[in-house]
């Protein structure tokens, strides 16, 4: 597949000043600047800006359909030939991923590749002459800058209906210091924290722009602080995204199709992890954990009976069989992340094949 044609990406990413600051400090700063700041006159209304952005954002439909696992998300067109930047999620784990453009055109998308650290994916459509955001022209915003968020939250827009638009301000620019027990995400890096409620179902992959409609970032996946039960409204700055997009388009992370993936000589197995699944009675028996052996890796990592395995390293697990199959492609001593659904929550559990995952980077930034 030809993936690197005419897409303009800068060699050097835009510098994103990441600073660690307490949220309260940043918010106070934002408040102060609100009161004392000067003004740049805008010559167009938000409505005009919204109109200019809508053709560059899309609705994405794929796998899912359960509560907490919606079958839709949002995306940003990044080339005239139909490259779509979005988040890597279960939605893309489908034989057919459908993208609907702002004019209602319905196109089938091919997954070009994913970046598991940033949880980003690039899709490709069969199309020409599309409106798009040139990532090269993406800008930065400062704390207290006015922003607009475009997304298909709650899947409320269908067909040619425009994505939802929300407005707010950049509340903070900080480093997402995710770790187990708080925000479960593999991403550790600079983010925009916004006072726009962007963590609604289906919003991930949407566009954060400034008040001129210039792209600032991509709305991140839903993140909840497990301790405080608060949800984080954030976006990944485009500067962080560009290397990943480059990498994906250069083919290094091209999604391996099932046919040409190679099995390692020693694959990871469920028994090595200490997991027993429920009896495989149907062709698609959901991958529920029936039992976890004491003293096993799975036990130490916190997996429990009745957890439903829904993803393995970002790939959808649809059944007991597909979990076994996916494991067979993984080295026996590889680090993996199993995503389970437990009491309505999606929980990411990092594991290392064969032995306990006791890395120290859980606590370091």
């Amino acid at each position, binding site marked *: 597949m030809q993936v690197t044609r005419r897409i303009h990406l800068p060699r050097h990413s835009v510098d994103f000043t990441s*600073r660690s600051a307490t949220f309260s400090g940043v918010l106070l700063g934002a408040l102060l*600047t609100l009161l004392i700041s000067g003004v740049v006159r*805008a010559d*167009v209304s938000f409505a005009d800006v919204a109109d200019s952005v809508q053709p560059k954002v899309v609705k994405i439909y794929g796998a899912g359909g359960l509560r907490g696992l919606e079958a839709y998300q949002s995306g940003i067109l990044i080339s005239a030939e139909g490259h779509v930047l979005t988040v890597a999620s279960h939605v893309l784990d489908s034989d057919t991923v459908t993208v609907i453009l702002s004019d209602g055109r319905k196109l089938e998308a091919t997954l070009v590749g994913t970046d598991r650290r940033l949880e980003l994916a690039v899709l490709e459509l069969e199309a020409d002459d599309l409106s798009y955001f040139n990532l090269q022209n993406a800008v930065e915003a400062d704390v207290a800058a006015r922003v607009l968020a475009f997304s298909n939250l709650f899947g409320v827009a269908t067909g*040619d209906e*425009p994505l939802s*638009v*929300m*407005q707010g301000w950049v509340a903070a620019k900080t480093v997402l210091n995710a770790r187990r027990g708080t925000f479960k995400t593999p991403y550790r890096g600079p983010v925009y924290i916004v006072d726009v409620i962007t963590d609604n179902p289906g919003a991930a992959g949407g566009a954060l722009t400034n008040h001129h409609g210039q792209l600032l970032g991509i709305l991140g996946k839903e993140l909840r602080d497990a301790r405080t039960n608060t949800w984080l409204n954030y976006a990944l700055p485009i500067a962080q995204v560009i290397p990943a997009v480059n990498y994906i388009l250069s083919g290094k992370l091209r999604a391996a199709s099932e046919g040409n993936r190679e099995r390692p000589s020693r694959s990871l197995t469920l028994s090595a992890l200490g997991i027993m699944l429920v009896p495989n009675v149907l062709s698609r028996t959901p991958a529920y954990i029936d039992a976890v052996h004491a003293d096993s890796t799975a036990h130490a990592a916190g997996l429990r009976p009745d957890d439903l395995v829904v993803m393995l390293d970002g790939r959808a697990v649809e059944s007991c069989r597909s979990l076994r199959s996916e494991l067979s492609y993984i080295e026996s001593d590889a680090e993996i992340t199993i995503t389970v659904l437990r009491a309505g929550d999606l929980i990411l559990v990092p594991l290392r094949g064969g032995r306990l995952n006791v890395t120290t980077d859980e606590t370091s930034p």
Partner: protein
Amino acid sequence: MKHCAAIAGILLAVTTGAWASDDASSPPHPDVLAAEAERVAVIASIIPPTVAVFANGGQGGGSGVVISPDGFALTNFHVAQPAGNAMKCGLPDGVLYDAVIVGVDPTGDVALIKLLGREDFPYAELGNSDALRIGDPAIVAGNPFVLANDFQPTITYGVVSGTHRYQYPSGTLLEYADCIQTDAAINPGNSGGPLFNAQGELVGINGRGSFEKRGRVNVGVGYAISINQIKKFLGYLKSGRVVDHATLGATVSTSEDGRVVVDDILESSDAYRRGLRYDDEIVRFGQRDIRTVNAMKNALGIYPRGWSVPLMFRRDGQSVRRMVRLAGLHSAGELARLLQKPVEPPQPKEKPKHKDQPDESPKRPGHPNIRSILNKSQMPKVVADHFEKRPGYANYHFNRINQDRIWQAFVARGDLSQLDSRWTIMGSLESDDPVTIQLSEDTGTLILLEGDSSVHYEDDLSAAIKPPRTGGLLAALHVWHRWATVGLTRFGEVYYLGTMPLSGDGPMVDVLVGTYGGAETRFYFDPNTGDLLALEMFSDDDVDPCEIYFSQLRSINGHMLPHRLEIRHASATYAVVEVKEYQFGDEGEN
């Protein structure tokens, strides 16, 4: 749009890290101050008509907004219903007013109530919700979490996030078709309250939000019923009825090639009689182009039962435009039955929790003390004076006063009951052929060159459904004669339907519905003059009516009488009669 630009102009340019107050000495840009002053003025103007609705002795409630100086106010059906027929409404002037239910639209989640006690209430101007653009400012006023113990509304501010959204009903009720989506905070208690545009015009009634994972608090996704939809229903709501939405009698789906096509149609529907068939493509409905099923749901969801709406459909490359009469979404009695179900769960009679409720509020005439204010079982006299219970109605009082109003205006144009009830109408057809119509209490005759048609009216009009291809012209003429000569009280069963555009695209007119002789007749009156403009007589359910349009009204001895009768049936004109002379009594006998 000037406002939008100005508000958008408040970009706060800040150097990262430079939070020190270097800039504190430089005054804000004049544009910022101007935009701020403008916004403050708009918000000051939207506060006075915003209503805090209290239900269940202060344990629940919501919001509302006054829309006319005589106290008509809009709220949600789901706010008004638990409140019962009488409710207490606080305005920001600090006064708690008695209010009475007027009309309800359970499908659209709208209720019209009337605040009592003044003729000079502050009220909101109605805007044009179809002119809203995504990104426009959106201002919400209301009573979130029923906080407004002092009746001062909470203001939240955001943008229009979406227009023409469709939110599915629960069952067949509380459908939000063609609604407005906003990120201005809408929380429980905001229900029924106003959504304003940047000019402070009322553009929607907030009533719903997407919530899901965080419990029932705002996640920046609120929905408001568009004021343009409510404008269509307002005349119906003022009739005191439980009003219904419309159905086309056909369902649509998206075909393989992305067209919106009919996938089922009732043969009894008007759409079917107008020629719509299975697999026809819907191109346009009302004022909307139809490209998606949602667009069709939105286009249809804004219409009240009984309206006629232009429909354009395509078959074999040919486009066909027809005026289609919309039937009710619910069958007779179905709405009333549905409303029986979600009756208010009995509330334990507790003492009011809000001790700071306005015991000291100014007493108005007939205004009982706070204890009985919160005792729902006792209807205040001022409310009882404006309430009349009757099955099928939210408040029959308002139906009756409208019937009386229309009758008085009609009679003021000449009381035809004072004339001899034997009428002879002489005129000519478009072909210049003469025509004579003779009407009396019990007979009707149509004399044409090609022959006569004559009936003797019985209690049942079924014998008078002739001549052919008219839908029952002789019966319709008799109904007209009966209305004019015996009047409102003796005609038969009559109710006020509300207002609708005459023949679908004409001016808004008052509509009375009368049942007599087994036929239902709609009478259309000019709301300004009181003249009868048209009538439609339905000899049976699911058949095309006989329509008579009356025009060229001229005074005959102080009685306004039409000198042109256009008779239509099944969207074709049967005849146009130019009246040359009216005779009353013996002078008309041959």
